[in-house]
């Protein structure tokens, strides 16, 4: 049984596009006692994972803490030491590993991010602008003098649930046993004869069996922070990724001029592995499927090894094939199923009007947010080995075309007859900030607020 009342909302089940507005508010805590009193007043309002029987609430509130935040709230050092080293080090400290260099270097990040000052992240989801404003206002009024806002990011669902480059996003979510088994075909672990099975909850929520422990009676539960923090929690990787939409459009246009009859939309699909509406290339290599329905059963049910081993449909280095290779690495997916992430991204900033290829200087991009039980095994492994390198896919040092490190010499090959080559990436996406956060369960959150966390 999953203790949904103790797990924060939006993790095992997505709020989805239920909310038009999502705001991320990072705050700093200067005094542990004041901070804990303030936190206590919020705990009862935190949205948990129980199903909404009376429709969606007008707003949802969720909390996450950085390691510096746990410390600032007085969590004892011994308990902090029980957290994994990458979480304690923080995202900025891992910049070289993650490819956050050059224009993405932490020294260039937005104020308050990656400096150890960001302590608590409050995520507010709201049905309307008015509800959002009043909630934020109330939160601000309630803050004691020792708690101050540092950085605010307003996310908004864009027209057609697309991200700024124009792709519908967020289809491939992991299927979790006992929670999201409806997503199993395409979202679980690939098995023989086209079958799939859902992933163990412990891959995403601490205190539960994961893929390593559940079939092995001799193994204990996966490692987790000391009690009472090690139950019902998870880690949140939060990244603000600026998207240079004008540059992306220009690069695409220039490249497509020499691609199959100048077919820009097809080249755009090849870069990602899906047409802009989400139709997977493996299912529909020649054109988007106008009848594509992401919610339909089987919409995300495809594999690479048999259907498209050579990448003639979905290129070997396409974004979705890199970030979620399914069975593309061989061994029926056994090299990839422990590197899955629950993604809850949200675009920020105004859209660049259609057809514009000159930068308007506006800040826009994606707040990448994912939930994992292990930051290093799941998020970092995908970022470092699958997106920022091509070795495992036999692609030399090619990098992901969208996220790739612009200092690299990687290219992207679109397999075909003849193959087409996209040049080394420019600064299409740059990191503007990020934090590794711990998302405590409700009980754990109360323990932190009561000063009894360890």
């Amino acid at each position, binding site marked *: 049984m999953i203790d949904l009342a103790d797990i924060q909302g939006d993790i095992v089940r997505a709020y989805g596009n239920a909310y038009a507005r999502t705001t991320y508010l990072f705050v700093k805590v200067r005094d542990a006692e004041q901070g804990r009193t303030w936190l206590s007043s919020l705990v009862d309002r935190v949205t948990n994972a129980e199903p909404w029987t009376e429709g969606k609430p007008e707003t949802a509130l969720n909390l996450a803490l950085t390691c510096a935040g746990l410390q600032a709230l007085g969590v004892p050092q011994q308990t902090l030491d029980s957290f994994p080293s990458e979480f304690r080090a923080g995202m900025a400290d891992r910049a070289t590993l993650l490819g956050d260099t050059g224009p993405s270097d932490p020294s260039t990040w937005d104020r308050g991010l990656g400096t150890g000052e960001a302590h608590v992240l409050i995520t507010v989801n709201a049905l309307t602008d008015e509800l959002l404003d009043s909630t934020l206002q109330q939160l601000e009024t309630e803050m004691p003098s020792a708690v101050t806002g540092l950085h605010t990011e307003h996310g908004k669902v864009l027209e057609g649930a697309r991200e700024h480059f124009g792709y519908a996003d967020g289809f491939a979510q992991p299927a979790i046993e006992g929670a999201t088994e409806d997503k199993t075909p395409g979202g679980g672990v690939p098995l023989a004869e086209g079958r799939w099975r859902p992933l163990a909850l412990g891959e995403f929520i601490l205190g539960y069996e994961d893929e390593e422990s559940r079939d092995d009676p001799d193994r204990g539960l996966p490692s987790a922070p000391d009690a009472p923090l090690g139950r019902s929690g998870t880690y949140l990787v939060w990244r603000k990724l600026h998207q240079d939409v004008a540059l992306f459009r220009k690069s695409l246009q220039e490249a497509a001029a*020499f691609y199959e009859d100048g077919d820009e939309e097809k080249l755009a699909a090849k870069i990602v592995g899906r047409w802009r509406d989400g139709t997977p290339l493996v299912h529909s290599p020649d054109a988007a499927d106008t009848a594509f329905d992401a919610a339909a059963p089987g919409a995300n049910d495809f594999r690479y090894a048999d259907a498209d081993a050579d990448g003639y449909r979905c290129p070997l280095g396409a974004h979705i094939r890199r970030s979620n290779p399914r069975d593309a690495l061989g061994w029926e997916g056994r090299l990839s199923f422990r590197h899955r992430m629950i993604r809850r991204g949200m675009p920020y900033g105004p859209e660049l009007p259609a057809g514009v290829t000159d930068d308007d200087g506006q800040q826009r991009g994606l707040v990448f947010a994912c939930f994992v039980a292990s930051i290093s095994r799941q998020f970092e492994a995908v970022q470092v080995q699958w997106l920022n390198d091509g070795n495992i896919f036999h692609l*030399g040092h090619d990098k992901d075309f969208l996220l790739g490190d612009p200092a690299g010499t990687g290219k992207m090959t679109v397999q075909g007859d003849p193959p087409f*080559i996209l040049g080394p990436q420019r600064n299409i996406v740059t990191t503007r900030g990020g934090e590794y956060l711990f998302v405590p369960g409700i009980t754990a959150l109360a323990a932190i607020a009561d000063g009894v966390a360890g």
Partner: protein
Amino acid sequence: MKRANVSGQACALMAMTPIAPGEEPALRGYLEGFRGQSPLARLERTHFARWVIVPDYVNDPKQRHEEHLGGPYLIFTSNFDGPLDTYLDELAAELADEAREIWGRCVGAPQTAADLKRYLMHNQIDTGFFYAAYPTATVAKVRAALGNRDRLIDFALRAQSMPPQELRAAFLAEGFA
């Protein structure tokens, strides 16, 4: 040279030398001072190489009697394009200054280039089994191939927009080796 030290044209060398009494901290400091700037980069036939200081044995807490090394040792290992003989000549000539700082702090410190070569061969420990991922490719060949890859990518990018005649001329002009 023992056959186990060789795979294709690649060779393995390991030499273990006792560090002179009291010299370990200075030697460690000197090696750490290289940071990203290894003098081994000047030996263009080197695939991988390292200096390792072994301060003592690791003792199993359960073993009856603790065992200790007589003193700290320096291990030098290198995987390189053979043969050993000329590699050591190059090392002795090219790394003369560094060698004085490194092996000069070991027992029986070699004085001249010829000394150093004899010294390393005398203290060589033969390999049990040597594996090289690309036994026939020299470092120079690997570097050239990486350079060719970048040039080829650049060429392929330009070529995508060229009509056949121009493509032929451009390809010949590149003269890919």
